[in-house]
């Protein structure tokens, strides 16, 4: 194992991730949650519960403790009001970044490999979440997962692991989502960043396990622009990167329309799986800036639209 190369790759990824994350407001400094950002690791969950922040007044009903009655409000009217506070709890996010061989593809030397862009987005998200006081679990390619942790050092550890995976792949299987052995905390959020080019059935099967755990989830599909448009022409022999096999297309320009249709169908399948579980689905292309997708991802992760 080339430790020096791994260190360098990890450092490079973190620098990029910092750049991406720095361009966005830290998670809890976003305008909507500015009130709850004071408490480290805790923020409102938009429902009544144990917390410090005022949530709402509501009419007293049986079962409410008398201590909960707000006498000032009750004194103004004939009805007795109870002061409710917002439930506050720290959130746990599990992040997975696909580093399988197919992710190492880039159609042009000017574009970064998909894996690199995915890693940058993963680390940037981790950075922002840590800044916001959340807890992070990194799901590795072979299904392992670290304990939920918070603190800045975690991001560095994650960067090391991802860099190692990119340099020296540990995954033996193709780009399907691994079976995560770790039991994730309930109500935690899982973020999966991959190209999701494995057969739809495999992906659906993998996702079902996570959905059954009742997790909130977000899928980010990272694609090279060439995968979107198939910009080749002429007689071409296409070879897979994960021993899927090869095929010869005589006139690629003629096959383009079919390919684009198939890709769209595949993506529709993913979207419907995600939508059924209430998960969000994002598409990112490596020729675009990661900030746009990151902004959408943040909105989703912090939005709690369950």
């Amino acid at each position: 194992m080339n430790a020096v190369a791994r260190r360098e790759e990890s450092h490079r990824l973190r620098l990029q991730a910092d750049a991406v994350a720095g361009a966005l407001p830290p998670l809890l400094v976003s305008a909507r949650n500015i009130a709850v950002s004071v408490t480290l690791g805790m923020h409102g969950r938009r429902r009544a519960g144990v917390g410090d922040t005022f949530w709402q007044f509501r009419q007293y009903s049986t079962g409410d403790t008398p201590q909960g009655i707000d006498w000032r409000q009750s004194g103004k009217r004939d009805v007795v009001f109870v002061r409710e506070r917002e439930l506050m709890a720290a959130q746990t996010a599990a992040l997975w970044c696909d580093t399988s061989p197919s992710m190492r593809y880039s159609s042009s030397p000017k574009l970064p490999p998909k894996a690199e862009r995915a890693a940058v987005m993963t680390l940037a998200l981790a950075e922002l979440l840590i800044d916001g006081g959340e807890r992070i679990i990194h799901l590795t390619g072979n299904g392992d997962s670290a304990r939920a942790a918070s603190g800045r050092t975690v991001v560095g550890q994650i960067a090391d692991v991802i860099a190692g995976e990119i340099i020296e792949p540990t995954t033996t299987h193709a780009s399907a989502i691994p079976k995560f052995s770790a039991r994730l905390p309930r109500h935690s959020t899982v973020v999966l960043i991959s190209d999701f080019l494995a057969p739809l059935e495999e992906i659906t099967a993998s996702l079902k396990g996570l959905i059954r755990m009742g997790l909130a989830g977000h899928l980010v599909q990272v694609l090279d622009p060439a995968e979107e448009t198939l910009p080749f022409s002429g007689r071409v022999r296409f070879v897979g990167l994960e021993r899927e096999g090869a095929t010869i297309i005589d006139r690629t320009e003629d096959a383009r329309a079919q390919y684009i249709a198939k890709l769209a169908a595949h993506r529709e399948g993913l979207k419907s799986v995600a939508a059924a579980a209430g998960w969000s689905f994002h598409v990112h292309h490596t020729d675009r800036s990661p900030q746009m997708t990151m902004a959408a991802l943040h909105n989703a992760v912090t939005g709690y639209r369950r």
Partner: protein
Amino acid sequence: MLNLGLLSFGAPWALAAAAALPLVWLLLRLTPPAVKQIHFPAVRLLFDLDPTQRTSAHTPPWLIILRIGLLALALLGLSEPVINFNRAEKSGPLVVVIDTGWGAATHWEQRMRVLRDLLETADRRGDQAVVITTDMASVGEETDTHLSPARDALARVSHIAPQPWPTDRVHAAAQVKALTLKTAGRTVWISDGVDTDGSADLAAALSSIGPLTVIDSGTLPSALIVYPPERKLAAGTENASSNVDVKVGRVGADKYPAAIHTVRAIDDQGQVLGHATATFGSGATTATAHMPIPSELANQIARFDIEGVTTAAATALMDDRWQRRPVGIASATATGIRAPLLENAYYLKKALAPFADVRAGDLDALFERPLAVLIMADGGRILDAEQKRLTDWVSNGGMLVRFAGPGLEGNVDPLLPVKLRNGDRALGGSMSWTTPASLAPFPEASPFKGLLVPDDVTVTTQVLAEPASDLQKRTWALLKDGTPLVTARTIGHGWVVLFHVSATPEWSKLPLSGLFVDMLRRVVDISHGLDTGGSADDSEGVLAPRSIIDAFGRLGAPNATVGAIAAATFDEKQPSPATPPGLYGPRGATRALNLSAHLDNPHALPGFSMGVTHASFDAVVHEQALKPWLLVIALLLLLGDLIVSYFLRRLIPERGLAKVGVAASVLVLLLMGAHPVHAAEGTRRGEIDAAAKAAILDTRLAYIGTGAPDLDRVANAGLDALTELLSARTAAEFAAPAKIDLAGVTDADGLIPYPLIYWRITSNFRVPPDKALAAVNMYLHRGGLVIFDAPDQVGALGGGGSGTVTQRLDELLRKLDIPPVVTLSDDHVLNRSFYLTRGLPGRYVNAPVMVERASAANDGASSVVIGGNDWVSAWAKDASGAPLYAAVPGGEAQREQAFRAGVNMVMYALTGNYKSDQVHLPAIMERLTQ
């Protein structure tokens, strides 16, 4: 040989290969394009695409057609097709005689085409051939003619060219007779249509070998000849002009109808100066073109030719006997011109320059080269020693024009047209009652006849002729009172002309008027030119070839085989390889050897009887071989196919296409731009060095390096301080001062940019090299100012107080070309060119300052300031601005005076004597008296 109508095939078996074309078609159709491999992550999506939508992997049909067409063209080309195959042409050895004399230059292209067609036809039939020219053999040159394969003969055809001299058919007939042919052959004579010696002999020799065909230009226009014209003065015309009659001839008049040709007069730059038409009557051999042309243009004519005809015979070169008449102005004082506008010859030179070559000098210098007209403007008598020479020259056709003057009275010498009275006549003077006389209209017999006489030309003083019976005849111009103004007399072949007034405006207004120009033009026009006017030793000279013309009338440099011609025998020389037509002799006295001058009415070649066929150029069938064209087209198609294939295989990506285009255009530009690149290199070589550039781009003061570093530093610091002061107090803003190393100065170019040069003389001064001194001299003459500073005081830098510095200065000044100097006076411009100062104080005040004595040269401004006040030491400051040396005895007040002296010197160098203008005197006087 397979014949299909117009088309014939030399190798028809090659067409059999066309049977394989359908097979090629099939192969091409079946071969799919090559596969390209691409790694692609989403390959799963590409599996199981709808096979019905897959298109064929076959080559596109148009490409197949292109390739089949390519093959078909190549096969067709290899089968050697010939269009227009002459089936009547029999086979057998071919003997061709082609005339290469002057007459062949007309329609030479057609002659060569006929020759090539004949040889190509023979080659196609595998015949042997020989080509014999009727060239005049050069001395010692033996042409080896024998039969060889027609292909070899064809290769030698390009060496055949027409010559600007007649044919030598006797020699050609001998060559034909020497041929040995095994079988009976065919003979062709491509004739130029001009009859010469041996024509019949040649025809007979050719006929004896085989049936003879004589091919000539048929009904095409025949060869034209322009005879060199004579020059005549057009009498009686309003403005001076010459009428040139150009005689034009043609060969074989009986065959041709009437024709009109345009004769052109052309100068040595190729500009057409005039043209006229020559009209041949039907059957006429000669015609004449009348060309009126102004005299000054006629002088520039370098050749006559016929529009649209470029042959040696139709070109008549004009030499210096025709062209400008050299006019010599004799003067006793040929050098040392002091006041140009008062000089005798000034008005003559101005008047003659438009139409004559004017030379001035003493008689010896003038007669070194031939003269047409000699003008003596001094008005004195001719020395006895010169009389003999001048009389000989005039009687040989020279024209002597004399002007009156104070010394010309009485019968001073025989070279006068009339006897003169003693004393001159003054009209309109303070002691005379008559008003200045004006001119009468010119007499009928005068060459000036027709010139308008302006009223404002008046004569105040003239010399008078003694009345004589023949005075009337000799008078070319008179005054209103009947006294002659211009008289002339012939001596031998030449003229003596006397203007009874001087050549300057002192005696009359004639030299100021336009009439003077016209009169001189007429005088020069009637001079004989140079043909008989050359000096006696001309006939002994040898005329070297200057430039020769080829058969197409083009001038070119003579080659080594062309010999010089003795002047005495020049007129008898016939054009030949050793003496081709052209210009011979030195510049200014060239003689033209014209081909046409030696063609005395040439006759057309007579028809030959007895088995001789006459034909014209178009009688020879032109067989056109298609093989090269077809193969070239096939090759182009192959290139096109290559490019198309690359595109089809995507070996050139779309983006790469732009790159390919850019690369191709760059390549083309590089090829085209090869020459400009050369030119750029050429200019780079002439670049000026950095020091000269710095000197030219910014004005700056300069000092001459003394070799002592500390002194140079002081000089630099001093001039630097002065430069700073100048920009603070005056409008002169200079760049940093420059140091001149005289050892490196070779010409004045290194010095001339500087307005002022400071030269410090030291006790161990070494006199610079001669080249540098010459450069300094040139600098002084061109208006530069050098300040020689030689402080000899005790304690002065580089001095010794023992007078050595002054000695060194003397040593230097003796070597330089310094005009007389005087002590600087108090009212010298140097003392008031900017500040009003007294003397030029420096670090010291007591050393004398010398400047050039006022003279006419350089507007009276002095080119030197010689002193010893050590100015730079007074100016020099250190980095902090503190003065380096004390000024003695005046202290800081004296230093200010020193700076003012420096400013004055710089201003003097820049403005010269501007301040001495009287315009400023009142103001200066006012300030001085205050």
